[in-house]
């Protein structure tokens, strides 16, 4: 009697392009257990042409949407800046303030478009993680470049600390790590009205490092903590409008951290503030 051997070890999900068709192939050995010998191979071909087309369309769609949505938003920001900079004549105080509001809101929309696209790509498993050598402290420098204005405008401090035991350079995806920091600081800034935000990069042990974002904000009720990383979630729905944003920031953080093989934890005291801790493995050069 023939048995398909070790189904868990079979080769599955291999895609082949055959003329205009895309086929998926699964292969397993057929074994005669009584005679203790291999009697053949079974191969299952499945026509997945339509599925493959849809996947391709979806990723093209995301790419096109990304470009088509961002371009006009960039144009709106540019033209408004021109007005604000008095290229076509000077504006009065009220007009300048309106121009500033247009810029702030358009930038917000641009961030939301970016968040939605990241979310869509992650859900589709399309977001790729790079591994490259980069200067560890650049994460903090770039954070200040993006976030200082936002925290300053709210009257909050944004301070940082860099553990001298951290390696000067590490291997990782600097853009994605930057996105994690910016999203966390943005989240803290939204829920902090006095005091500020402190960001630390430190070595945890020989194989891990940590990124900590601590704020003096409103804190998160204990029963809500399990839900804050869910897509489109903000504690108390009413605050969504008050705090703006896509509600995707923390969900993106969690998904990115998981893609980077790390973990995120949060400690919070109501009315005192929250600390988000990301623990990530050091990547060895041989694993690049």
């Amino acid at each position: 009697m023939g048995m398909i051997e070790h189904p868990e070890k079979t080769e599955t999900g291999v895609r082949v392009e055959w003329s205009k068709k895309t086929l998926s192939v699964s292969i397993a050995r057929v074994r005669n257990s009584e005679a203790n010998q291999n009697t053949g191979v079974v191969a299952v071909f499945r026509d997945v042409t339509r599925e493959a087309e849809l996947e391709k369309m979806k990723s093209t769609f995301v790419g096109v949407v990304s470009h088509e949505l961002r371009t006009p938003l960039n144009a709106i920001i540019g033209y408004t800046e021109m007005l604000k900079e008095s290229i076509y004549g000077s504006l009065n105080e009220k007009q300048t303030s309106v121009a500033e509001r247009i810029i702030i809101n358009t930038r917000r929309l641009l961030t939301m478009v970016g968040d939605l696209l990241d979310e869509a790509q992650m859900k589709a498993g399309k977001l790729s993680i790079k591994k490259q050598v980069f200067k560890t402290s650049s994460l903090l420098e770039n954070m200040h470049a993006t976030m200082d204005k936002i925290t300053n405008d709210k009257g909050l401090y944004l301070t940082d600390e860099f553990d001298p035991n951290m390696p000067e350079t590490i291997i990782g995806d600097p853009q994605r790590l930057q996105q994690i920091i910016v999203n966390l600081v943005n989240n803290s800034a939204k829920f902090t009205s006095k005091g500020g935000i402190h960001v630390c990069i430190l070595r945890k042990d020989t194989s891990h490092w940590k990124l900590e974002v601590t704020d003096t904000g409103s804190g998160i009720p204990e029963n809500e903590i399990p839900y804050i990383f869910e897509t489109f979630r903000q504690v108390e729905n009413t605050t969504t409008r008050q705090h703006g944003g896509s509600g995707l920031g923390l969900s993106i953080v969690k998904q990115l951290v998981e893609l980077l093989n790390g973990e995120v934890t949060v400690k919070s005291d109501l009315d005192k503030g929250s600390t988000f801790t990301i623990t990530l493995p050091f990547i060895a050069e041989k694993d690049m």
Partner: protein
Amino acid sequence: MENLAFVIEDDEDLSNIFAEALKAAGFQVETIRDGAIAQKRIKEASPEIIILDMHLPHVDGATLLTQIRSEEHLKETRVLIATADALLGDFYRGDADSVLIKPVSFSQLRDLTARYKRK
């Protein structure tokens, strides 16, 4: 022509905005919206500065960049790449004088290019 700048960008709005920023920085600006025309114009003229979009019809930005870098009469020309793709931007950082990640702020572009102006 003194203080000549090329804006090579296919999007009409971004081209307008970049051009205004360069004018505000004191340049004489020529806007080009097609890669093939850009290829012809960089052979004829010696702009001080070129703002280069990477996605262009007919001839792409990467090809133009290679050509600019190989032309003797353009060896003093500053090339600023404008792209929305930060990863692509990193890739060209070595060849370009500066990489601008879109959205490019009008005031930043004006101030940056003003620093590059020869006189």
